C-alpha cells in the first residue's frame, strides 16, 4: 500500500533547499491548499453550470450555448462577468446585515466543507479524525444563511422560500447522517481517507455501493434535497415562489447563491464518490501501472501519475453523479412541501435507521466483508 506523494513535505523541503527557514517555509505552504481548493472548487462549479446548460439543452432538444467559446464553454465566464458588473440592488426596507450576510454564509459553509474531500492519500487539505462529520455539521450552516436571506429580504416569497429551506434541510439531514453513519460504521472511522481505504482491494466490487445499496439511495436522495435540486427545489420553486429566497437578489449576491448551490452540488457528488464509489480508486491499480512502466513505486513520476489518476477518477465519478442529478432535474416534476416532509420523516428516516441496524448486524455476522 503506497501512501503517495506528500506535497507539503516536498514543498517545504524544496523551499528549505532554496534557503528559506523551516518556519517561513511552513507559513508559505499554509495558504496554498486553501487557494487551490477555492480555485478548483469554483472551477468545478463553473463546469457544472455549463454541463447543466448543455445537458438540459440535449434533454430538451435544444443546442444550448454555442457561441461563447468552443461548445459554449466560456458561458460560465460570461455569466460571472455579467453578474460582477451589475448593480447590486438592496430593497429599501431590507435588513442590510442579514441581506448581505446571507449569501456569504451559504458560500462559506459550502467551501469550508471542501476541506475534507480527498483526491488521494495525501491530496486532501486536512485528514480530520471527524472528517465526514465535519461536513454534516457544516452543511447545517447553509440553511441559516438561506433563512437570513429570506427573512432579511423583506419579501413574502423570500420568507416562504427561506422557511422552506430550513424545514427541508432539517428533515433531510437526519437520514443523510444516518446513511453516512452506516458507512462510518463499516470503516470504523469518520475520516474520509479511511473510508476510501476500506473500499480498496477488490476493484469495483469493493465499493461501498454494493454493501450499502440502500444507504447509497438514501444518501443520494437526501443529498439532492440538501442541495435543493429538483425534484426537491422547493425553496426556490419558480412557479410558486418566483425565486424563493433569491427573489430580491441580483448581481454579486445572487452570484454567491448561484455559486453556492452548484458548489454544494459538486461537493455532494464528490462525497458520493468518496463514500460509495471508491473515491480515488481506479480500475487500473497504481501498482500494475508501475509494473508496466518498470518503475518503482517510490519513483516521483509514478507518484505524480498516481496523484493525477486519483484526482481524475474522483472527478469522473463525481461528474457522473452530477450528470445524473442534472438529468433528474430536467425529467421529473417537483414534489409538494408536505410530500417532501413525508418522504423525509416517514420513509427515509425509518429506512435509514433499519439500514443502520442491518449494517450493524451484518458487521457482527460477517466482519470480513462488512469491516470488523
Amino acid at each position, binding site marked *: 500500500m503506497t501512501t503517495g506523494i506528500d506535497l507539503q513535505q516536498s514543498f517545504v523541503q524544496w523551499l528549505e533547499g532554496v534557503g528559506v527557514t523551516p518556519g517561513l517555509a511552513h507559513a508559505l505552504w499554509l495558504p496554498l491548499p486553501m487557494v487551490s481548493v477555492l480555485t478548483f472548487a469554483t472551477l468545478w462549479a463553473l463546469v457544472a453550470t455549463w454541463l447543466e446548460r448543455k445537458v438540459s439543452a440535449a434533454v430538451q432538444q435544444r443546442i444550448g450555448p454555442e457561441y461563447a467559446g468552443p461548445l459554449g464553454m466560456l458561458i460560465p465566464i460570461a455569466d460571472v462577468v455579467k453578474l460582477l458588473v451589475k448593480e447590486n440592488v438592496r430593497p429599501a426596507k431590507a435588513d442590510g446585515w442579514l441581506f448581505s450576510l446571507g449569501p456569504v454564509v451559504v458560500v462559506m459553509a459550502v467551501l469550508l466543507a471542501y476541506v475534507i474531500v480527498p483526491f488521494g492519500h495525501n491530496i486532501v487539505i486536512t485528514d480530520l479524525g471527524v472528517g465526514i462529520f465535519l461536513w454534516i455539521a457544516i452543511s447545517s450552516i447553509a440553511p441559516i444563511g438561506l433563512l437570513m436571506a429570506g427573512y432579511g429580504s423583506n419579501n413574502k416569497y423570500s420568507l416562504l422560500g427561506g422557511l422552506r429551506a430550513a424545514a427541508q434541510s432539517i428533515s433531510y439531514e437526519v437520514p443523510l447522517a444516518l446513511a453516512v453513519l452506516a458507512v462510518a460504521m463499516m470503516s470504523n472511522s469518520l475520516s474520509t481517507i479511511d473510508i476510501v481505504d476500506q473500499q480498496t482491494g477488490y476493484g469495483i466490487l469493493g465499493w461501498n455501493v454494493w454493501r450499502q445499496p440502500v444507504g447509497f439511495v438514501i444518501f443520494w436522495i437526501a443529498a439532492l434535497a440538501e442541495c435543493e435540486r429538483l425534484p426537491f427545489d422547493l425553496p426556490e420553486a419558480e412557479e410558486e415562489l418566483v425565486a424563493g429566497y433569491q427573489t430580491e437578489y441580483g448581481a454579486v449576491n445572487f452570484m454567491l447563491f448561484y455559486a453556492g448551490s452548484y458548489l454544494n452540488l459538486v461537493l455532494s457528488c464528490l462525497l458520493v464518490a468518496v463514500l460509495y464509489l471508491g473515491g480515488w480508486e481506479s480500475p487500473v491499480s497504481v501498482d500494475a501501472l508501475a509494473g508496466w512502466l518498470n518503475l518503482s513505486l517510490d519513483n516521483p513520476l509514478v507518484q505524480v501519475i498516481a496523484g493525477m489518476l486519483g484526482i481524475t477518477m474522483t472527478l469522473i465519478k463525481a461528474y457522473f453523479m452530477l450528470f445524473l442529478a442534472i438529468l433528474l432535474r*430536467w425529467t421529473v*416534476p417537483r414534489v409538494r412541501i408536505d410530500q417532501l416532509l413525508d418522504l423525509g420523516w416517514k420513509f427515509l428516516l425509518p429506512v435509514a435507521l433499519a439500514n443502520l441496524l442491518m449494517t450493524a448486524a451484518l458487521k457482527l455476522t460477517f466482519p470480513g466483508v462488512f469491516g470488523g
Partner: protein
Amino acid sequence: MTMIETRTDPMVINFGPHHPSMHGVLRLMVTLDGENVIDCEPVLGYLHRSMEKIAENRTVVQYLPYVTRWDYLATMFTEAITVNAPEKLADVPVPKRASYIRVIMLELSRIASHLLWLGPFLADVGAQTPFFYIFREREMVYDLFEAATGMRMMHNYFRVGGVAADLPYGWVDKCEDFCNYFLPKVDEYERLITDNPIFRKRVQGVGTLSREDAINWGMSGPMLRASGVKWDLRKVDHYECYDDFDWEVQWATDGDCFARYVVRLGEMRQSAKIIQQALKGLPGGPYENLEAKRISSGPKSEWGGFDYQFISKKSSPTFKIPKGEHYVRVEAPKGELGVYILGDDSVFPWRWKIRPPGFINLQVLPQLVRGMKVADIMAILGSIDIIMGEVDR
C-alpha cells in the same frame, strides 16, 4: 388553567399579475396560513381591451382580425364563432367542402391549444422539459396554418359562408403526415409523464370538482367532462360536419387535475383521428379550388357543384346582420365558446356578447384551492387552462 397558545397571523400574499406561473396577467390575492391556502381572490382585467364594444362598430369582416386575440392559442375557434353567429342569424349555407376545411382547421387548433396547455401545466408542477417537446409538434400545426392561411396565429381565415381560401395543393398530404407523426408523439408524452410517481402525487386528488359542482358553476369543456359529465357540443349541437366522423367524447369521472390531464390527452388523439377522417372524406379531394378538375371535365362538371366550393358566396364587406338575436356556441378547447348576437339589420351587430370558457371556468378557482397547499394553486390553475386574453377580452 391557561393554555399557552402560539398563533400565527395569516399572511396575505400577492401572486401576479407578473408572477411566472399566472398564465399571463392573472392576479391572485392569496391568504396563507404557513403553506396552507385559506383564501384566494382572483383579480381580473389587466388585459381588458373592450372586445365586445369594438364589435359594435365593426362589420364581420372588419372584426375578424380582432377575434384571434381573445384566445390567442385556439385562434380558429374564435374565428369560427365570429362567422357562425351572423351565419346562423342570416341563415347562410356553408358548402360541404368549406365545412370540412373548417373542421380540419378547428381540430388542428384544438391540438395546438391542448399542446400549449400540456407544457405549461407540467411546468406549473415543476417539470420544464415537456414544454420544449410540445413546441416541436405545435410548430408543425402552425406551419400547416401558415401554408393554408398565410398566418401562423392570427389567421383571419374564416368567412361568412365558408373560408377565405381553399387549401393549397399538397396541404392535405402534409396534414396527413402530421397526424401520422403526431399520434405516436402523444404516446411519447404519456410515457414521459403519465406514470411518473411525482406527477401522479402532485395532481391526483388535487382540485377535485364534483359533478354537481361542475354543473352548478357552469363549467364547460374538459373541466366539465373530467367531472363525469359527457357533454361535448360537437356531439350535442351537431354543428359543422362532426356527425360524419367516428369519434368518442373524452370524459373521466374523478374530477381532479389528473382527470383533466387524461381528458385533454384523449382529446388530442380524437382530434387527430377526426382530422384523418376529414382529410380522407374531403369533398372534391385534395385539389386547390378544384380548377383543374373543373376545366378538364367541361362546363357541366360535377365539381362545379355547391358542396365542392370553399365558400358559398363571397360575403360582401357590407354584409348586413339581420334583425334578431341568437346565441351561437362552439366547443372550444377550453370549453363552450359562445356569442350572443343582437342584429339590427345593419352592417354592425347591435350587441356582441362573448361567453369565454376560460372566464367561466376560472370562477371555481377559489373554491378549488381553499385548504390546499401553495404549490397546489399552480397545479389547479394550470389544469383549468385559462387564457387571459379571453378571460379579460
